[in-house]
């Protein structure tokens, strides 16, 4: 196949690749109007990472303000602080974490992993990206229009009565972002159902696909509820019709039910694809068949189903009935089981592996470390009487940052490193990657582990001012956040540097077996000339290092007849 030959060492290094998606067509319009899932993925990636930067700046402002009780930064008063943490939360949840893995990495990788030319509905895919842009513009406009200080949770009746006038624009923005997410979800569900290549049965799919499939189901089923809830909130704020305002016979707790009916599954929209990435990273970099494939696949689906049944655990102190609290607590523990299964399976995948400690693998192992802490502290919060003490304290803040950031975002960064050579055809420097990982990893733990202690000692969240005895923890936490920020800036630096001066990436730099490692780096416009057929994507017995290639090759001579040869080898 020509595409592969173009990248093989036989062709001279000065010649640009004959066909890759980055150089296939040129000009801004060729990107803006592209239907290529890879280009849409890259645009999403850029958009998400830019939002991550903005959300991160707000996080640093919040952490800096908390260095001392009362005012620290002279221009940050209580209202400004409230706006900062609201922006941090809203940006990170709606603009960064929810689209990060599915829309950015998933868009790029999913069709290639399937051996497909594109997703099922390429135009809808581009539409999803532009909806994201419109949503983001609405969020920016809300800042111009007066900002919002409701917290990312928009609890009523505060959100319907606050004097900040940017609330409605941001609600419209989040509403639109919801549709962006639904479009991605529909696309992935249909693509996985209809565009699998011959030979790829459900149980031969890479686990990342199982995870994105489960995620897409949640996106399609849960996000509409958010949309309706936000519309109701807009109507309530504009027309005061009394849906949630008790002064007019409404019920503020009803809003919480609606909100968490989406937002708890949304937690799994964030973490499930992250788990999928980790299954790939661990198995590829350990060069070892994933342990307990079916348990991992089923646990993704189990998590997706359970995720719809546990929203009430955000409301143990809200005044919902003790019976409801009891039921929700019991069901909540059921989510712990599939999560634990995944961790045990990843650990067993390391056993008798052949482990390369590449940067993606560092992130993969770091994920297991952080997710274990995040998951285990969930036990404190799922338990009824301990949650009464810990609810809405920094313990919760620490817990969900371990899961949302320490797990979901760390997996996203890991996945970015894992597929970076594939996406851009360049290698970053390994030792640079390791430095970045350790800065982020250490900074993260310093920042958030201290917050567990803050919370269990009774420090409530969303506090501008606090008791002086809590200060030492806040100082440590803030220092950690600076270390983490340094790590991220460093990572941004070496990744960008690799685009300019990085070594050319081989087709298969890590020794992966799934289909994306069989096309060239970066992939050609069509991904594959002919539909490839596949065998066991976790069979590493045939993966060998090729010195000439500078990467790994798959020796297909011993493979059964059913496994076609989609590449030149």
């Amino acid at each position: 196949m020509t595409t592969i030959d173009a990248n093989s060492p036989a062709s001279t290094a000065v010649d640009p690749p004959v066909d890759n998606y980055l150089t296939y067509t040129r000009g801004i319009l060729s990107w803006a109007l592209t239907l290529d899932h890879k280009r849409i993925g890259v645009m999403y990636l850029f958009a998400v990472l830019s939002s991550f930067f903005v959300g991160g700046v707000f996080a640093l402002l919040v952490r800096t303000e908390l260095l001392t009780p009362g005012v620290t930064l002279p221009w940050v008063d209580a209202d400004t602080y409230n706006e900062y943490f609201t922006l941090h939360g809203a940006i990170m949840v709606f603009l960064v974490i929810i689209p990060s893995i599915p829309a950015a990495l998933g868009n790029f990788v999913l069709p290639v992993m399937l051996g497909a030319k594109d997703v099922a509905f390429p135009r809808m895919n581009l539409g999803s990206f532009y909806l994201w842009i419109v949503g983001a513009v609405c969020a920016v406009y809300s800042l111009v229009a007066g900002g919002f200080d409701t917290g990312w949770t928009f609890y009523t009746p505060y959100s319907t009565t606050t004097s900040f006038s940017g609330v409605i624009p941001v609600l419209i923005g989040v509403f639109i972002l919801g549709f962006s997410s639904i479009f991605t979800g529909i696309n992935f569900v249909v693509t996985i159902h209809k565009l699998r290549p011959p030979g790829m049965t459900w149980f031969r799919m890479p686990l990342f696909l199982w995870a994105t499939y489960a995620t897409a189901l949640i996106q399609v089923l849960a996000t509409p509820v958010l949309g309706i809830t936000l519309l109701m909130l807009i109507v309530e704020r504009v027309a005061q019709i009394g849906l949630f305002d008790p002064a007019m016979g409404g019920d503020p707790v009803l809003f919480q039910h609606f909100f968490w009916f989406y937002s708890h599954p949304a937690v799994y929209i964030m973490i499930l694809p992250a788990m999928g990435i980790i299954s790939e990273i661990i198995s590829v970099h350990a060069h070892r068949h994933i342990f307990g494939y079916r348990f991992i696949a089923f646990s993704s689906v189990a998590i997706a189903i359970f995720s719809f049944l546990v929203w009430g655990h955000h409301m143990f102190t809200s005044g919902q009935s003790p019976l409801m609290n009891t039921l929700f607590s019991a069901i909540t523990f059921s989510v712990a089981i599939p999560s634990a299964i995944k961790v045990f399976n990843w650990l067993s995948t390391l056993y008798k592996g052949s482990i390369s400690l590449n940067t993606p693998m560092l992130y993969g192992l770091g994920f297991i470390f952080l997710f274990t802490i995040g998951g285990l502290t969930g036990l404190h919060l799922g338990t009824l009487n301990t949650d009464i003490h810990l609810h809405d304290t920094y313990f919760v803040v620490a817990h969900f940052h371990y899961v949302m950031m320490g797990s979901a975002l760390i997996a996203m960064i890991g996945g970015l490193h894992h597929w970076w050579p594939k996406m851009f055809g360049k290698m970053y420097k390994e030792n640079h990657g390791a430095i970045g990982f350790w800065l982020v990893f250490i900074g993260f733990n310093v920042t958030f582990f201290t917050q567990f202690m803050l919370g269990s000692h009774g420090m409530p969240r969303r506090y501008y001012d606090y008791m002086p005895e809590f200060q030492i923890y806040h100082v440590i936490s803030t220092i950690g956040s600076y270390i983490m920020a340094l790590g991220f800036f460093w990572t941004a630096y070496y990744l960008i540097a690799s685009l300019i001066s990085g070594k050319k990436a081989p087709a298969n730099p890590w020794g992966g077996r799934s289909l994306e490692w069989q096309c060239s780096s970066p992939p050609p416009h069509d991904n594959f000339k002919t539909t490839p057929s596949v065998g066991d994507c976790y069979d590493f017995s045939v993966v060998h290092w090729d010195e000439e290639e500078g990467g790994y090759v798959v020796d297909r001579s011993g493979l059964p007849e059913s496994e076609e040869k989609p590449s030149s080898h």
Partner: protein
Amino acid sequence: MMPNLLENILTPLAATVAQSTAPAEETVQAAQATTEIVEETGRPMRDLGGTFWLPEPQSTLAPSMDWAFMAITWLCYICFAGIVIALVYFTWKYRQKGNEVVYQADAPLHNTPLEVGWTVVPLLLCIAIFFMGFKGFLDLSTPPKDSYEIRVTAFKWGWGFKYPNGATSENLIVPVGQPVKLIMRSSDVLHSLYIPAFRVKKDVVPGRYSYLWFQADEIAGFPESDTSVETGHYLFCTEYCGTGHSNMNRVVYVLPQDDFEAWEEEQARWLDSVPDEDLYAVAGPRLYSKCSNCHTIDGGANTGPSWGDPTSGSLAGLGDVWKRTKDGTTPVTGGTKGKPGTTLADYIGEGKLYGTPEDYIRASILNPGELLVAGYGPNMPHFRGQIDERGIDGLIMMMAKIDEFDAAGRFKGTLPSVSAAGGEGTESE
């Protein structure tokens, strides 16, 4: 032990940091340093107390919560250690030297008994943890029949506590060794009442009543001096409610039964016993403690307009609250009965909204929001039923003589009548 070791390191560090925030004076004695922190943040520096994880338990149900917390925590330590040890060991043992894959054909693909095992064992542990929490939760949500009932009103941004005999307070005062049930309502948005030392928390929802109960088992009485709140337990608002959310904290004092009854009696009757000539000097400051969260006396900026001469903002240079009200110079930006771009002079006088400046101030306490002072939002809760007419009288007189009070609202001069009892007033502030 590891936790204690860390704690020993953290505690002196905390002291160092706290001192560094105090004004940089070289030879401050330890005692003075504490006072300065009080001056600067309005709060004394306390010892965090308790264990590495939890503050000192102070209620009858706290120990069982602590037990559950520590049981789960130890389970977490064990699981975490196991996972991380396996992680590090496997990664080291099976590390790949060089680029070539060392493929081990005998590496298992799955192991059903093992996988069923690590599904069932966590499930059993989770069921056990669930029941532990369930039992504790049943106790927490079942107030004993003989509970002493205190009615709570949460508002932006403070708490009103009302006792069966009609006494009211801003801090929560409870008797020791008796179950106390709080019957809570909110007059605006969601709030949540949280007392970490008692391990209790409950949202306060507008439009419904919610209950919370506890029984304090140790005395935590009033502090010796009123500048320091060394005793008592913190009471926080833990549901985000806007600008003053983080200042919506108060103190819970636990008194011996006799002291509590005496306090309650005095609290309900004190206003009647203040002689008329002392009303502004005694009742004023005591009632001002309800206002001090939002209104300063020294002109400093806060949520509400200062009662003194504001140094900044829309009222700068207009004089103290009485002067600018009397002169009618206060600018108005709206409100339910006001129009933007007007001043108080348009509303006070014969045939206007308020007959006299006193009427305006009284209305601002009972029905705030009718007129909004320029630069301030509709944030003030109403105080209907919380301050009676005589108390309002005292507050208006205090405003008129604001120069006789210091920044904390304490009366600086000597009482017009020396007969006023010295003991009252200081306790509840």
